[in-house]
């Protein structure tokens, strides 16, 4: 679950990680008032959307007069912001963060993630802050330092020193101490809130020598939300694709893509592989949809409905390897969707495994028009033929 910058900063502020003074606004008149509370000029007006690349997309404005704060806010609010991560239609900006501007002396990068290979959390630091870390990684990898954290001992002060004393030219004692405490606090935030990512870029030193988190990215492990209930209110459904949101409600794992062949599969790996097969047959997958092992008839019906709500879809491929999910349940769900008059597109069905005969029988006995594929290779061919 992604958090907005202002939400992450709120957590930082309460956790001993210095942040600029700022205020969230959802209307232009609030923006004008905000300038009276937040010291400036300059002010920074930042669109609050989950997509990255806001800066280059025009979602971050530095302004010098109160009326400019209002203008910038008006410019952003309610309008789509297009970044390299949003796609051409962009995302609607619903909230804007207004912050005091600071005079930056140096910019660092600081983040925490889970490192898979070592099975430990890792703290990542670079003195080349302010730019994208992927860029630093490819151009100057030696400037990226990592420390892995053993859960038995937690974050240790020497690890902070390993990161900080590599900075050239070296920092003076004040910033060293603040950085050490920021790292310790970041570790605490990461572990106590079950984060999967926390990123501060840039982590700036101001001209006055203060260390401050100018940006904040935070993602929480969705598997841990059962014990992070107080974070649930940070979830912002407006940021999600409406079809994905609907799928989430029915415990379906749906991701919208750009193609024209809808796919319904059981199992994430098989669903990915099915997308690949579609592509290889010369068509484009319109979605990833894993109905999972425990799908009921009504969930299948709902899945068909969600696939079809995407107007770009020209054909549907159902690929089920019956295991826990039985083929007859799948068939009933599809037939129920057809009865509701939803299916007016070519349907290619490939069934295998538990109760496969029963499933085929149910499909045959329905009014549904569909093609049966004996295996995956044939299914792909049939799909390609339908959309070509």
């Amino acid at each position: 679950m992604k958090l907005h910058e202002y939400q992450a900063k709120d957590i930082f502020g309460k956790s001993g990680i210095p942040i600029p003074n700022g205020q969230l606004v959802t209307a232009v008149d609030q923006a004008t008032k905000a300038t009276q509370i937040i010291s400036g000029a300059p002010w920074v007006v930042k669109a609050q959307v989950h997509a990255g690349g806001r800066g280059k997309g025009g979602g971050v404005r530095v302004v010098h007069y109160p009326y400019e704060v209002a203008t910038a806010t008006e410019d952003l609010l309610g309008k789509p912001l297009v970044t390299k991560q949003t796609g051409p239609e962009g995302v609607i900006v619903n909230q804007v963060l207004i912050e005091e501007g600071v005079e930056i002396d140096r910019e660092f990068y600081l983040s925490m993630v889970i490192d898979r290979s070592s099975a430990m959390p890792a703290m990542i630091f670079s003195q080349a802050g302010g730019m994208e870390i992927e860029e630093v990684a490819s151009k100057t990898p030696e400037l990226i330092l990592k420390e892995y954290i053993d859960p038995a001992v937690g974050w240790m002060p020497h690890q902070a020193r390993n990161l900080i004393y590599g900075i050239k030219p070296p920092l003076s004692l004040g910033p060293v101490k603040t950085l050490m405490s920021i790292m310790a606090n970041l570790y605490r935030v990461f572990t106590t809130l079950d984060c999967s990512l926390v990123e501060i870029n840039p982590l700036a030193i101001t001209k006055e020598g203060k260390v401050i988190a100018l940006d904040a990215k935070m993602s929480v492990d969705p598997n841990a939300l059962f014990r992070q209930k107080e974070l649930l209110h940070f979830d912002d459904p407006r940021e999600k694709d409406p079809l994905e949101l609907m799928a989430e409600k029915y415990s379906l794992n749906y991701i919208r893509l750009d193609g024209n062949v809808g796919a319904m599969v059981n199992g994430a790996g098989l669903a990915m592989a099915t997308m690949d097969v579609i592509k290889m047959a010369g068509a484009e997958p319109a979605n990833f949809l894993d109905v999972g092992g425990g799908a009921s008839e009504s969930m299948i019906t709902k899945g068909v409905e969600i696939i079809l709500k995407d107007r770009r879809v020209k054909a549907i491929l159902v690929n089920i390897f019956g295991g826990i999910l039985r083929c007859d349940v799948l068939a009933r769900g599809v037939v129920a969707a057809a009865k509701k008059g939803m299916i007016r597109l070519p349907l290619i069905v490939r069934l295998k495994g538990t109760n496969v005969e029963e499933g085929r029988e149910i499909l045959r006995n329905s009014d549904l028009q569909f093609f049966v594929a004996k295996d995956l290779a044939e299914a792909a061919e049939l799909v390609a033929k339908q959309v070509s």
Partner: protein
Amino acid sequence: MSILVDENSRVVVQGITGREGTFHTKLMIEYGTVVAAGVTPGKGGKKVEDVPVFNTLKDAVDKEGVNVSCIFVPPPFAADAIIEAASAGLKVIVCITEGIPTLDMVKVASFLKDKDSVLIGPNCPGIISPGKTKVGIMPGPIHMQGGMAVISRSGTLTYEVVDQLTGVGLGQSTCIGIGGDPIIGTTFIDHLKWFKEDPETKGVVLIGEIGGTAEEEAAAYIRKEFNKPVIAFIAGQTAPPGRRMGHAGAIISGGQGRAEDKINALEAGGITVCMNLGNLGQTALEVMGKS
């Protein structure tokens, strides 16, 4: 031969009284697995499918001599179940549970470091040595005893592959779902090492997917150390970056985890990569025929 589990495995099902636990206990017994005990705290003394239930795994070990565990307990309690199994000295721990918090798995991984237990999963279909025993949720009948090993990060995709192998007459020594989570107990390399020593295993099918660098690491290992034919498949060639594709571990992020990088690494390791899932069985047959 086969690896990790066989007809001598005495399986304990942790979470046996739950819906999934009971259902798969039945299917495992039908397959021929010796399910010797179950564990559900507070349900000690009951029976499920004629299997005695204990309050603690320690009791199950003491009374029934179990040596392999199959875990179905819900995500919030799964880390505790894995650690309980390792503390009780079980050799092989199979964790089916999907949705365990990653930081719980960080602790589990740390705990297991100096233990002798082998953890398979979590978020996996389990392990099967066809004709001998099945510890997990895979459909038994698609399997056939033989010389192919299957190691996979996926569930139904593995069934698809096994089905194709059986279809072309290639039986399996042991098939393992290592799990779709970012942190898993055993990796491709762990199992490759065991398969290397297993005389029954003649070749390996390795099923990867986007996310992480496990396939790249396996490729490097195979190039240097592994002497049996390997056929690989990578799911997610068309997956967009930044999106978690069902599995918690299947995500392209920070420039890492792309299918093409994995395919390149595998091919550089001299491994036959099957690009189209539909042809996997056929490809395996060709590779194994040559060797």
